């Protein structure tokens, strides 16, 4: 009974000081993170940090650089030209090998979460798969042709993140071959 009488709550002054200190802390925290949050909203997801995506793009870059194209044509074509046909989720390339021969490479992004690279070489078929890509990878990933100087030499790869922000935009073009 005696101890209960001694118990008392906090005074108004104590509560006010405690809340003021807490409020100051909150204001400082929000000020420090405001700019950071603003930039986070603007910046796309860094998809290049995904090792699968970086691996696919790296390998695809090499294929396009090694591609052989008839003069004035593009490694990416929308209509059948008697040689290859591509779509926004597929690219077909005629790639030169270090041995001097050619092989047809098909990059196929139509399977959710999977990138397939199929190489055809005189009766042999060889497939390389990158699994574990984001499920909506194919939906947000597009391949198109881009004009460089005066002709559609280039292949343009774009990918948006879940919020529709462009995260990947890369132009690739074949290199000269001797």
């Amino acid at each position, binding site marked *: 009974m*005696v*101890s209960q009488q001694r118990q008392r709550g906090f005074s108004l002054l104590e509560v006010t000081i405690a809340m003021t200190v807490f409020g100051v802390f909150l204001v400082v*925290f929000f000020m*420090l*993170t405001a700019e*950071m949050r603003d*930039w*986070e909203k*603007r*910046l*796309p997801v*860094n998809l*290049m*940090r995904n090792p699968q995506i970086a691996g696919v793009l790296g390998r695809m870059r090499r294929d396009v650089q090694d591609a052989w194209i008839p003069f004035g044509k593009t490694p990416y074509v929308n209509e059948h030209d008697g040689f290859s046909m591509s779509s926004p989720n597929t690219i077909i390339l005629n790639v030169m090998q270090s041995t001097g021969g050619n092989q047809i490479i098909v990059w196929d992004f139509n399977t959710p979460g999977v990138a397939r690279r199929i190489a055809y070489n005189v009766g042999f078929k060889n497939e390389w798969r990158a699994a574990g890509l984001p499920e909506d990878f194919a939906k947000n990933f597009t391949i198109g042709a881009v004009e*460089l*100087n*005066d002709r559609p*030499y*280039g292949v343009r790869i774009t990918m948006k993140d879940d919020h529709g*922000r*462009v995260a*990947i*935009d*890369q*132009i*690739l*073009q074949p*290199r*000269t071959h001797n």
Partner: protein
Amino acid sequence: MPRTMAAMRDQRGFSLVEVMVAFLVLTIVITVSLAAFLERNKRLQQATEIVLAYQALANEAEYRRRMPFTELESQPASFVSDTQVLDPLEPYGTAVKVEQVKPGVKSVTMTVRWRSGERSAQLSVLRVETGASSLW
């Protein structure tokens, strides 16, 4: 029961020194954690910004590779490629500088600046005159 009441009477609050030491420790822990969190986020943002900037630089390089060697100096001094990948860095600026290194060799330097010029990324390519048209 009497023992419990006695024990309760013996209870006392923390002294001012104890509370202050506890607050000091808590403040240090919070400050260090917050600083580490902010620094980590800043670096992640910088990494994302640089990835965007270098994609734009590499794309511009592909355009400049295709331009005729003799007309490199007369080309626009800013990027001619589509720079939509740089939209999150608005306002940003782009610049292209062409210098003759020696006869038949030109250096093309592309620059992207953002955050009021505080940050920048640069890429240089050397163009060699091959005698052919529109080659790199």
